């Protein structure tokens, strides 16, 4: 069986309002949506960790986990479909406006792949005027991620 690589035309990015920090917590019937016109270049680290390598008498001996970093996410949409953007408001149970993002790479020939980015704040939204569609660039910071997995919670 061939192993197809996933491409831009197979992605979907959705958001749901987060309620409570530290995991996939949402209120009953939370605000959510699928983001339209996401441009090529959506990027996120699956994980970001810092290790210190410890030496024993000058010879590398072992690693120590020093820090698990938040995940810096970025994506750009074409401006105009305002209702699709993440509703960045503070929900009950959180101290900051937060959303969860879910990204699905559909796989018509096999099993789709999901990634979830949890407890995201949106430090910056930047507008750029362009000849073929004005752009809105989102800079997002997630607490943690889940994935790749074979099922999602927002996108069927």
């Amino acid at each position: 069986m061939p192993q197809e690589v996933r491409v831009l035309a197979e992605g979907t990015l959705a958001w749901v309002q987060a309620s409570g920090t530290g995991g996939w917590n949402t209120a009953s019937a939370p605000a959510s949506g699928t983001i339209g016109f996401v441009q090529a270049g959506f990027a996120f680290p699956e994980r970001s960790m810092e290790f210190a390598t410890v030496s024993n008498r000058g010879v590398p001996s072992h690693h120590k986990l020093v820090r698990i970093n938040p995940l810096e996410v970025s994506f750009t949409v074409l401006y105009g479909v305002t209702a699709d953007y993440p509703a960045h408001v503070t929900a009950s149970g959180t101290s900051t406006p937060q959303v969860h993002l879910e990204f699905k790479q559909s796989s018509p020939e096999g099993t789709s792949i999901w990634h979830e980015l949890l407890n995201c704040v949106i430090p910056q939204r930047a507008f750029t005027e362009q000849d073929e569609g004005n752009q809105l660039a989102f800079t997002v910071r997630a607490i943690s991620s889940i994935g790749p997995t074979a099922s999602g919670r927002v996108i069927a």
Partner: protein
Amino acid sequence: MPFSADYGDVNVQGSFNKFFQDNITAYGLPSWITGVSVYFDFPDQGLTAFPSFSVVHMNKIQRNVAQGRIVRGTPMQSGMWNDGLVDISCWASTRRSGGAYNNSAMLQMRSMRDMVMNVMHSASGILIRNIYADTANPTSLRALIRIRDIEEMPTPTDPDPSIRRSRMLVSYYYLERW
């Protein structure tokens, strides 16, 4: 229910053509042109009256510009970017229908070129109308065809030595949604 495609060629090219027909003479005619015809099916339909315009849609290229081809999230809508090209030509004849010489032919051709530019520059976007639903009075689908570039092209000598032609290739783009 009859077939329809809101953002297909019938509606898009038809809306472009209707916009052209409605507006090309909306600002009047110069005194050396008493009337013009517009042909939308040249060369299938021959040019029999001069001076005249021909509007011929040519090749189109579809491009994916969005993740998952999703161009609207809620409710979800898919789409592809279409780059289209239309040939708009202005035709004049140095012979009148009775055989007399038309010494205004070049002037007619050049002023028709100016009329085309005037129309193309008059709108930042052309509304796409639902011709599938109503051919006589199509209503707006609230989507746009946008004009990109207008390139004036050299033309080969016509087989008929009395014919003068000014040719423009107008590129446009719109989103074909489904």
